[in-house]
């Protein structure tokens, strides 16, 4: 497969998956997921100490995906590194052949497994986007010349179900202004809401080449869906989906969740609502190929 950037630039409906590095040195399962997905998707996100839980690093795993012939999307958060650390890791990423960077704020340490850690947030996600762009132009943040520029395709995130939405949209606009090339959204489940969000987003991105990919987290059961509603800010699973999941036996709910994800992919693609999807199965990546197959099958 070509690169994530090529797929975006070609105007394809792009599909990315996600790899969550393990907590430890046992990479067997992760490598299996990488090999399973790398040729089925346009790009593979690698999470960066996701949920502020310490894990194997995004940079090393992204490098491994390059080595295996996939195209990684290196997630970089502003939580753990100051502007020196971030830029150094960006140069390391370039050195490893990584070209896609997803710039995130990062969850606060207090939600993770090292609650006593000092958080950094020297840059915010907007600065990190700007920084990637500067490095692409051959300069570091301070304007010092680099001996060799980077060539990053720069991504960012946005939360369509944020409450209130208005401040979120202003930040989205700052990210566009900073030069983000693509966006992956926080998980969305309400397609009507998402269409309304996309209308607002398209107004902001008018005149740019910015691509917007809907984030889809596969629902694995009613319990998980309710938990997301209750505990994850900016995620809204509508009652209709809860009912749909609840209407089948517990052991069939994951299958139903996969069907819902496939249906949403089809809907977003066939109605040209957005430019692609980012499919997250959170540790259950082996179900992703089937979801993609279901999404590609005629409805």
């Amino acid at each position, binding site marked *: 497969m070509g690169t994530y950037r090529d797929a975006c630039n070609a105007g394809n409906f792009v599909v990315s998956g996600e790899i969550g590095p393990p907590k430890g040195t046992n990479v067997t399962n992760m490598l299996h997921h990488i090999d399973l997905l790398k040729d089925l998707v346009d790009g593979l996100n690698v999470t960066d100490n996701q949920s502020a839980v310490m894990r194997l690093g995004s940079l090393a795993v992204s490098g491994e995906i390059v080595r295996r012939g996939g195209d990684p999307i290196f997630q970089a958060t502003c*939580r753990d590194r100051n*502007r020196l650390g971030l830029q150094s890791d960006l140069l390391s990423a370039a050195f490893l052949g990584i070209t896609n960077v997803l710039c995130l*704020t990062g*969850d*606060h340490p*207090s*939600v993770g497994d090292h609650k006593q850690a000092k*958080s950094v*947030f*020297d*840059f*915010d*996600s*907007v*600065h990190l986007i700007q920084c990637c762009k500067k490095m692409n132009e051959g300069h570091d943040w301070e304007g010092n010349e680099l001996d060799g520029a980077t060539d990053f395709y720069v991504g960012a*995130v946005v*939360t369509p179900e*944020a*409450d*209130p939405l*208005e*401040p*979120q949209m*202003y*930040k989205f*606009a*700052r990210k566009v*202004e*900073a030069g983000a090339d693509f966006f992956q959204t*926080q998980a969305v489940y309400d397609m009507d809401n998402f269409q309304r969000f996309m209308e607002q987003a398209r107004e902001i991105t008018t005149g740019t080449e910015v691509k917007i990919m809907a984030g889809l987290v596969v629902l694995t059961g009613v319990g998980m869906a309710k938990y997301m509603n209750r505990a994850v*800010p*900016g995620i809204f699973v509508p009652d209709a989906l809860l009912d749909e999941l609840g209407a089948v036996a517990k052991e069939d709910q994951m299958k139903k969740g996969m069907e819902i994800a496939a249906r949403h992919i089809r809907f977003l693609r066939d109605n040209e609502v957005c430019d692609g999807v980012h499919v997250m199965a959170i540790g259950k990546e082996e179900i992703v190929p089937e979801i993609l197959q279901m999404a590609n099958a005629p409805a």
Partner: protein
Amino acid sequence: MIISQKKPFEEILEDLEGDTKIVIIGCGECATATRTGGEPEVAEMKAQLEEEGKEVVFTDVVHTGCHELDVKRVLRQNKQVVAEADAFLVLSCGAGTQACRAATDKHVVPGCDPLFLGNIQRSMDFLEKCSHCGACVIDDYGAICPITRCAKGLVNGPCGGTNHGMCEVDPEMPCAWTLIHEQLKKEGREDKRTKLHEPKDWNVVRRPAAIVERGPGKLKMGSEE
């Protein structure tokens, strides 16, 4: 106002292990207002220590606990009794404790945990609104400081953790970015919301900071003296 809270008594006792004769110093400013190092707290601490077999040889609530000359003067005026002491227990913020440090070479023990620079909303109700970041930027934010009041100190808008207008990190705390946007709307200064802000310049608050010359804004790296 510097907001502090009392350390657990057991921790203080542990720190004072081996010390018999104790001086207790309180502070007439912040620690009095926060009820952590005023007259009643000093008296209570004296009683508690005596119950544990310590001998409290002197107590005083210094007018301004972080005023080093103030603390030195009090100790000098009572130098005979102070000379007997094994340790000084200071009920104030860390600045007050270190003002005592500057006034004696003996064992100095903190009796409070300094928490934050707080606004007094009403009696015993404090909220952190400023964190001394060195260059005030709040005009762009409706005079609501994102450096302090956003859990991540974000300067260009909210993260994804805004939860129905509250902060994911502390569900009791409003999201600073919701407050900022609402305030700018009230003022009719919505244009401020479209400004792209640079990261903070942390070089202006290199620690330890000192103003070593009299005059406005002369921040320099420097030692205590």
